[in-house]
């Protein structure tokens, strides 16, 4: 039976686990998701900096960027059926095939969420939808969650004193307030091409697999899912992706592992070490007494 993080967290009769399926093969990079997210969640702007990273001037997910669209300009021989152009008139040393990949990144709402594991205040919690949400008013800004995230998603908001929620850890809530009212998250609502799909995770996984099958049949052999498997290092992601290349190309870790995975073993070892130390000390005392 599928592991249900909400039930595991103590929710009784939890609704079906909710999540995102982000299909990058139909993303047109319009960034409506970024803007809709900020509008709905009152996230402040993240600075007016020209990064020149193709059309991406957002850079990365962070405390004030909960959706981030990556733009990857790529020289690569491409699969049949995908957009490409050779440099017109190019001779042998001319340009290779070229493509422009776009991907809207977001918090993965991991099945095993390290940010939640390390949170000392209980600010981060598992919702009845299986998502992971920060409670701003409880967060004390300790920042433990920040290095705990294997994707570098969650961050503390830096800013002037009048910046809302400054110093507090911030990330995507999967629009907890909207989905609780039966609405879809703002980003999915705004997405014009259905690149961002919201729904029951089980159903999204099925839909994603059939999309991959369609793309494979069309000759797009590189199409693959990322984060849909419960067997991965975070126990499967609540927000998973269809990618057209390796995860690293999009700035995603190829094999993410929940950073608290080894904690029980570490505690065990630490406990053993403590016991050993204690035993040594006892022995030392015992020895000295002899």
């Amino acid at each position: 039976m599928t592991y249900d993080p909400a039930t595991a967290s103590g929710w009784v009769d939890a609704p079906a686990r909710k999540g995102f399926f982000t299909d990058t093969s139909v993303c047109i990079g319009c960034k409506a998701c970024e803007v809709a997210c900020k509008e709905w969640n009152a996230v402040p702007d993240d600075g007016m900096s020209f990064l020149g990273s193709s059309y991406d001037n957002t850079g990365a997910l962070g405390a004030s960027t909960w959706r981030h669209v990556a733009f990857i300009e790529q020289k690569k021989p491409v699969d049949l059926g995908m957009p490409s152009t050779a440099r017109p008139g190019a001779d042998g040393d001319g340009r290779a095939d070229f493509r422009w990949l776009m991907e809207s990144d977001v918090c993965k709402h991991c099945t095993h969420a390290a940010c939640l594991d390390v949170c000392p205040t209980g600010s981060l919690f598992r919702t009845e939808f299986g998502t992971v949400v920060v409670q701003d008013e409880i967060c004390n800004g300790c920042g433990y969650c920040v290095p705990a995230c294997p994707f570098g998603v969650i961050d503390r908001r830096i800013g002037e004193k009048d910046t809302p929620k400054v110093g507090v850890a911030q990330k995507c809530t999967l629009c907890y307030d909207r989905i609780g009212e039966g609405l879809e998250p703002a980003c999915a609502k705004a997405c014009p091409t259905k690149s961002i799909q919201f729904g029951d995770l089980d159903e999204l996984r099925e839909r994603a697999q059939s999309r991959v099958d369609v793309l494979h049949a069309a000759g797009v052999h590189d199409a693959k899912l990322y984060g849909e498997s419960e067997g991965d290092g975070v126990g499967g992601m609540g927000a998973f992706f269809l990618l057209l290349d390796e995860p690293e190309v999009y700035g995603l870790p190829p094999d993410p592992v929940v950073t608290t995975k080894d904690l029980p073993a570490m505690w065990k070892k630490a406990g053993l070490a403590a016991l050993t130390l204690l035993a040594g000390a006892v022995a030392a005392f015992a020895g000295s007494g002899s």
Partner: protein
Amino acid sequence: MAECHPVGFQWVMEAKARGAKVIHIDPRFTRTSAVADSYVPIRAGSDIAFLGGIVKYILDNDKYFKDYVVAYTNASFLVGEGFVDSEDLGGLFSGYDEEKGSYDMSSWAYDGVDEEPAGGAGHHLGSGGPSLDPSNIKRDETLQHPRTVFQVLKRHYARYTPEMVEEICGVPPELFHEVCEAVTANSGRERTTCWVYSVGWTHHSVGVQYIRGSAIIQLLLGNMGRPGGGILALRGHASIQGSTDIPTLFNILPGYLPMPKAGDPDTFDDYLDTIRTPEQKGFWAEAESYVVSLLKAWWGDAATKGNDWCFDYLPRITGDHGTYQTAIDMNDDKVEGYFLLGQNPAVGSAHGKLQRLGMSHLKWLVVRDLNMIESATFWKDGPEIATGELKTEEIGTEVFFLPAAAHTEKSGSFTQTQRMLQWHHKAVDPPGDCTSELEFFFLLGKKLKERLADSVLERDLPLQRLTWDYSVDEKGEPSAADVLREINGRHLSGDKSGQPLSAYTEMKPDGSTAGGCWIYTGVYADDVNQAARRKPGQEQDWVATEWGWAWPANRRQLYNRASADPDGKPWSERKAYLSWDADQGKWVGPDVPDFVVDKPPSYRPPKGAAGADGLAGDDPFIMQADGKGWLYAPSGLLDGPMPVHYEPHESPVRNALHPQQASPTREVYKRQDNLSNPSGDDPGSDVFPYVFTTYRLTEHHTAGGMSRWLPYLSELQPEFFCEVSPEHARERGLEHLGWATIITARSAIEARVLVTERVVPLTMGGRTIHQVGLPYHWGVGADAVVSGDSANDLFGLTLDPNVHIQESKAASCDIQPGRRPTGPALLRLVEEYRSRAGITVETGNTLKTVKP
């Protein structure tokens, strides 16, 4: 389309998911290219050569839809003996007048049509094209006679070979062939192809002919009037279609009725004769009903037959009063005041300097906008203040800024590109002093009427008698629905007096009906706001005629008679749309027939029949004077009956087809404040060796008034940048994320550098052409969240003669690494370039370059 119309692009993605092939032809690799099946880079300003090459491919390989072409186009019509093609005159058609820089079009007429075609062109003619008497046209349905339009077309495009396409456009033959194959394979009885364009096609000195080029292809392939076909124009704003239907243009009245012109003769009958000839086929023959109804809507009871329905209350135009001529006139102190409504010419119009300097000559300027745009602040922080060309204390212009309500803060309709009106309801009240345009103009009209109430001057009668009574809500906002009701029109007498008209065919020339825009009649049929209908798609058939309302008569597909064969049967089951039901004796299908509903396919008009009765049962193009789709335009276009490739006004490339370098009828302005770069192989052209083009980004909206004041949008594209290829960057020493200065004869601007493989150097005619891409959203000012130099400052003014649209999608430039000089040094840099290129007011402005 994905770049500028991401929401509409969802339907393209849906079509793609169902197997549609998407080809993107653009100088720039955009978000559209990223998801297209193939991308074709092309030199900006060379599209007619590309389209002409496709026409040649279709004709040479017999790929045209013969039954459609013979029955529904003018392919079989004979052109008069006096016509000489541009191929035989070095790039000029017969009838060119070098003095006037224009054509006498009489030699272009069909054989047997002797009369002089009606003067004017483009918008002057309204939407129906020029009038003519089709009864004597000679035909050869075998298409073999050398003077048939078909054969004329074949000869005209004979030299548009794949090799020529490569030399002019920089598109390699294999890629060009792939497009030809795809387009023709996807056309015919079973399939249709559509073309989508935007201002990348219209902002040229030959922009109208770009569209004509695709019209010829679509008619040859049978892709007009059929589902999945057509030529689709994407607009830059939500209601640009609406603002030509109910025009903000100087030369047309609502419903594409021409604006009357001053001069002799100037009677009501003369005016009507410019719209229609009595012998003409089609619905324009009823133009008198439309004009009288419009005048009754405006002047009510004061409009009588005895005073020609107040026809003389309409102002007369005396020439070009378009936006660019007006800006020039401002500079010459011929204009006192200026209203800017949601328009930011200091940034969004070509030749920004001329725009700003022009506004500094005004006595008053009213800016109604959401934000304090650059056109409202140029007098204190514009670029000319920095260079010293303007001094704030010396500018006499009184600027009034009036904050405007946004679309969410008022009710009204948007008319989108499918001619569909969709009503939007006010969601929130406008904040502070913000008001809607409707309220502003209603109050302005009331104040003017109050002020003139006691006047005894005859000139004030038009305002005194103007009907101006709309209901007002408790907040003072006039009812937008009342306005739409007036536009729809009503019966003024008889049993139905006071009731709304249900169709424009009910309009009468006797003063018994009123209606503000004949093509919109029906939008308030049954006293119901049909534009506000929102029946979901899944609750109706696939044409969804109960969502919103499309003019005319709620038709979703124009000329849909062409979706059936001459006998009224669908061309194929797969593409069935309209068909003739002999039992019922009418046309049936999921759409409103764009045809007389009970006119059988076999109907042939009696000799001399006119108007709708003059259309045969197989004349689908009901607004054309001869009922046919025009492969060849015997009149109505000022720059030629068929598209010819001309180089842009400014081009680093010599015209490979003709000695005639650029359009011989383009509108040029020889002025010291409007200098041009040398073109082709003229001396000095090497000073400006690169092509540049301008465009939009998804993140911003046009001149930035709706986006650069919003942090959420500004942060996504915070700075003005130029896009160049790695090869070009190497050639000029440009560094990624560094700065570049781009220079033309008008100005020099600076931009951050984005080196990207999305920009492709083009190999053509043995040389490499580099193109610089410039998004035009930024402007110089102090009020916006983000600002920067304006790409439109680089352009001069050269216009298409048909519609007075500026050429601002292709010109030549130089680009150098580093930031531009500031202050007076900027002017010196531009001056240095001018002198190096030997530029005078004559440079580039010789219209006829073919030598006798």
